[in-house]
């Protein structure tokens, strides 16, 4: 199984639960705050906030809610904001399909996952049937 990039030197910024639509709003606002604190440019702030919003909604809609871990640290020698969304939902059966533009199992538009990937510098996803899904995204300054 694919291993997510991680580093003991990363600094933990926060851990948040997402169990309601309100949580989606407040957590994405926090992400904006962290990105601003890191002195990220306005467009990159918007990119990571929007990508996280997509992941949170998936987590809430398909994964029955979950947790978000926010960290900061060096990735490829660049100051990076790392956001990890973890749920213990049904998992994604066909990752390749889920990552393709326009695929939705529900009534979305199917742009959440592939779009989020385009908005960040690094995108890692790990999913196991009946165990859950973890998505880790990274954006550097």
């Amino acid at each position, binding site marked *: 199984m694919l291993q997510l990039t991680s580093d003991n030197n990363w600094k933990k910024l926060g851990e948040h639960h997402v169990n309601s*639509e*309100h949580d*989606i*709003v407040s957590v*994405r*606002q926090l992400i*904006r705050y962290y990105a601003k604190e890191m002195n990220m440019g*306005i*467009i990159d*702030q*918007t*990119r990571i*906030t*929007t990508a996280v*919003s*997509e992941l949170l*909604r998936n987590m809430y809609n398909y994964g029955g809610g979950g947790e978000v871990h926010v960290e900061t640290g060096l990735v490829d020698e660049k100051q990076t904001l790392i956001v990890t969304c973890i749920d213990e939902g049904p998992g994604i059966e066909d990752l390749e399909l889920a990552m393709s*533009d326009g695929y939705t199992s529900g009534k*979305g*538009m199917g*742009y*959440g996952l*592939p*779009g*989020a990937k*385009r*908005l960040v510098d690094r995108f890692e996803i790990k999913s196991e049937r009946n165990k859950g899904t973890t998505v880790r995204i990274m954006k550097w300054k």
Partner: protein
Amino acid sequence: MNNEMHEKRIPIIKIGNFLIVSIQVDMHDKLAIQLQSQILEEIEKTGAKGVLIDISVLEMVDSFIGRMLSGMASMAAIMDAAVVIVGMQPAVAITLVELGLEMPGVDTALNMEKGMEMLERRLEEEDYEL
């Protein structure tokens, strides 16, 4: 929770033939859907011919809000009302495009004045054709 949603109700103002909606909060999904129905109901009630949706203070539009806005435009069009999205921030526009939402068929304007002009022009053109 229901109360909270009521508090956040987004006001819709009617000026002349048009409705003006200014979205001032980061909307959660239910609020976005609620706004959609609210606007459609208002179009029916007032017979408005156009809707200006000002999103200049929105710092983020994700696929859900984007879908709500373009859906709004198509639905209003069926009811014979034109929708113009006004004042989108550059960072929001770039992000939407990268996300994959180009919102084809949705009319946009740089500011309220231009949006109003656009709607008026639309009405004039219709009059002219008659």
